């Protein structure tokens, strides 16, 4: 009998080994897929029990998002409230169990929930300390944001402001806004609203940039040495570009004109010729340096960003075989027209302001633990050397003239020099609407802030509609000037 008993022990050992193997299957090998199983409510319930950290404006005082606790003991759960309502809704986003997450609430979720690694959570378990989220201090400027909201005054549109040397995103405003506090109760209504309040117009919507795109064309032309600011080109109107006549705004005929003057007066026929000299390949190369053709490298959810670029029929991104002359002035045709987000145009202004060095944009400044320790500081990071410093210097001078005596005088500040460029795209089936733009940076000698403003499907020019909004944002943030 003893031999059989020993064999029986072998069998039991084997059976127990199977139990250990299956336990490891669920705890280790398939743990992630089980956690992701839609029938598994545990992760959601666990999250509700974590007090998420605060989201703060750059002043470290204004609370943009906080968690409010209800119940006590094991049943204590937390829900999010947004004290500033819709003003910061796009960059901050929201986080609710039933509705998911957007904005920084999503892209900084790990930091906000204090999601540590396995080892750290064991230590926390030994100390029986409850998991606590970290605070996220953003770069968002309260005064600048309020000025942008007030400037748009309820008109659909977007305003982005970036600190050129660091890439800090100081303003991200998209109108119409939505109140994140109403998401749980009114999600269906907000989500189906025909005005699309959930759409982040700064990063998620593409618009024709109009003449602001001439800055990109100028960058490529000057930096490759094909032209100088003093190069004279025939600015008569109309001129044949790619086999079809192109007119200047109002059909104005400028005759031979320097590039500086052609930018100041936004002469289409001149810049279309410059575009043809640059060529499609070089233009696309410079666009890529500015960050076109990819999502902004922003600490923001991928699904809330879209690449800018030249698109065929408004769908497919293309890099050649487009009408380079018309693209060069921010237009195009069915075979390829340039479309851009306001964020992308702010990055263009920012790169020029920072002597050609484009910094990665970022909404977050630092992560601070509950005990006040700075856990992580997001340092400035170079995204691309877009152009030579001399090119940036020349473009700055040309853009200063736009504000001083050209189409952008409405953005002029007293005592502070501003460099900028207007744009007015014609949109609508019969070109009955305009898409006014203004991009700028100031002060010219030592740029502190770069701004892009656009208003959606309205009437009026970039210089009269968009430039004043940019001016009020500059005023709010630079604190100077009254004119």
């Amino acid at each position, binding site marked *: *009998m*003893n*031999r*059989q*008993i*020993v*064999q*029986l*022990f072998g069998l*039991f*050992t084997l*059976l*127990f080994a*199977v*139990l*250990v193997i*299956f*336990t*490891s*299957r*669920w*705890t*280790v090998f*398939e*743990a*992630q897929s*089980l*956690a992701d*199983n839609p*029938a*598994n*409510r*545990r992760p959601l*319930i*666990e999250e*509700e029990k974590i007090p998420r950290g605060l989201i703060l404006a750059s002043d470290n005082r204004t609370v943009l998002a906080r968690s409010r606790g209800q*119940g006590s003991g*094991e*049943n204590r*759960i937390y829900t999010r409230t947004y004290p500033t309502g819709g003003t910061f809704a796009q960059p901050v986003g929201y986080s609710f169990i039933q509705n998911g997450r957007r904005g920084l609430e999503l892209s900084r979720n790990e930091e906000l929930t204090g999601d540590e690694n*396995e080892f750290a959570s*064991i230590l926390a*378990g*030994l100390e*029986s300390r409850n998991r606590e989220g970290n605070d996220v201090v953003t770069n968002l400027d309260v005064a600048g944001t309020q000025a942008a909201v007030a400037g748009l005054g309820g008109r659909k549109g977007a305003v982005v402001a970036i600190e050129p040397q660091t890439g800090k995103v100081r303003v991200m405003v998209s109108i119409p806004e939505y109140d994140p506090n109403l998401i749980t109760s009114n999600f269906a209504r907000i989500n189906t609203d025909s005005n699309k309040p959930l759409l982040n117009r700064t990063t998620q919507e593409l618009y024709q940039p109009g003449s602001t795109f001439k800055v990109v064309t100028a960058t490529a032309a000057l930096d490759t040495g094909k032209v100088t600011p003093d190069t004279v080109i025939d600015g008569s109107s109309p001129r044949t570009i790619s086999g079809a006549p192109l007119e200047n705004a109002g059909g104005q005929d400028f005759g031979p004109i320097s590039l500086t003057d052609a930018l100041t007066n936004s002469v289409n026929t001149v810049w279309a010729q410059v575009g043809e000299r640059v060529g499609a390949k070089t233009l696309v190369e410079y666009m890529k340096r500015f960050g076109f053709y990819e999502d902004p490298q922003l600490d923001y959810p991928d699904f809330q960003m879209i690449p800018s670029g030249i698109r065929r029929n408004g769908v497919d991104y293309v890099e050649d075989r487009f009408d380079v002359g018309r693209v060069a002035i921010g237009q195009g045709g069915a075979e390829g027209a340039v479309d851009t987000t306001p964020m992308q145009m702010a990055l263009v202004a920012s790169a020029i302001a920072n002597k050609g060095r484009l910094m990665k944009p970022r909404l977050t400044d630092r992560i601070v633990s509950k005990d006040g320790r700075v856990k992580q500081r997001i340092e400035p990071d170079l995204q691309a050397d877009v152009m030579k410093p001399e090119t940036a210097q020349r473009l700055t001078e040309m853009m200063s003239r736009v504000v001083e005596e050209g189409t952008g005088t409405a953005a002029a500040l007293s005592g502070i020099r501003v460099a900028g460029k207007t744009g007015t795209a014609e949109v609508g089936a019969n070109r009955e609407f305009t898409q006014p733009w203004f991009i700028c940076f100031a002060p010219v000698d030592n740029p502190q802030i770069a701004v892009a403003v656009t208003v959606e499907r309205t009437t009026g020019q970039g210089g009269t509609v968009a430039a004043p909004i940019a001016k009020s944002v500059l005023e709010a943030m630079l604190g100077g000037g009254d004119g």
Partner: protein
Amino acid sequence: MSARTRELFGLVPVSLLVAAGFAAVLATRTQDVSDATLTYGAFFLGLCVVAHLFIRARLPNADPYMFPLAASLAGIGLVLIYRIDPELAREQAQWFVVGLAFFCITIIAIDDHHVLERYRYTIAAASIGLLLLPRLPGIGSQVNGAFLAIKVGPIQFQPAEFAKLGIIVFLASYLRETGDILVRPRRKPLPYQRQILLWGIPVLLTLLGIAVFGLGVAGSVLLAVFTLSFAAVLRDQPSPKHFGPLLLVWGLAMLMLILIRDLGSSLMFFGGFLALLYVATGRLSLIGVGSTMFFGGAFFLSQSIAHVQERVDIWLDPFKRGVVDHEGYQLAQSLFAQADGGLFGQGFGQALLELPGGGVILPAAHTDLIYAVLVNEAGLFGAAGLLGAYLLLVYRGLRTALSAADGFSKLLATGLTGVLAIQVFVIVGGVTRVIPLTGVTLPFVSYGGSSIVANMVLLALLLIVSDHARSEARRRGGVM
């Protein structure tokens, strides 16, 4: 160091473990460790020392490791149940005291386990009676479709827990007597032509079965194993009259499926039976016939008993749409809880058990799913530790069987140990989706008076057998 002193020292880490466990749970509950934890640890240690002194007096030579192992399992169980519901833990602690009382009574009443042999048919009849009690109108109660419990007034009672002991005693005694004549000594090889006939017929029958009934892979394997094993049994030319009781046990297992409708307990009983049969006869062919008859019967019955069929369907795919939130909820939540535990677990007292706003997320957390709670709180390592403790207990039990002098003692120790091991496999296997989930308890750990009392009696019987075996070895001058 004497065996009893080793046992006493073995209890020290057990009490530390229990105190530490309670401390962890209390710390998460109240944020500070109160005196209560020390009281719990001291109370548990006191009980164990009393039981130890009793063993020292009555069974001085019994195995020194089994009691501390069982005590540690009970301690882990108490901590887990306390974590789920302090009120249940208080009840379980009372049941633990009752269990210890039965433990002592068993040891006092049964001075020599061989007396059990005298009453084996009485014991067998009583056990079958116990098994059928839950079907009696008035006192029987159906839980999750299975008839496992009876209810008299406020007391709920699971007779199967006790019936398993009786049936093991009966089988050990019966097989001790008939094991030798069930199979005769192996004969010399058959002539060539007879060999072909002997193995050819089952192969042909199997192929015929596959062709006629269009069997799948599992069915074909089952049929092949059955016919070949059956041929091997026939080759031994056993005496037919002794097979009657064996067929009876098979019939009983099938009857249990029909009447009790619980695959788990049937598997436990029949598995224990097959283990004993193999140890008694050393014939794999008998196991082949027995197990294929069981699986065949179970498969056939599962087609007709909706409750059993449902359990199998859930096992095959607990995440199926429409199943996962209803019938499959318990198993799915068990797996989710284990995934949540990971390698190291969430820590004692940290597992999520309640839904916000009331309601439980893990149904039957304190009984069927207590292993899932352990994995959630102590992780894969904690679970492996628990299974290790069981395996050590099984090891000591089978050591006892090896060292016992007579056949009945060997078979009794093997059967008691085997049924314990199989019960662990059935419930943990169910919770981890190795086999369909059924409602048997995790011995010593799960909440339940019947379970803890029956398993304490099981432990007492093992210790009695062990004491006899080791006393005898000592008399003969051998060293264990």
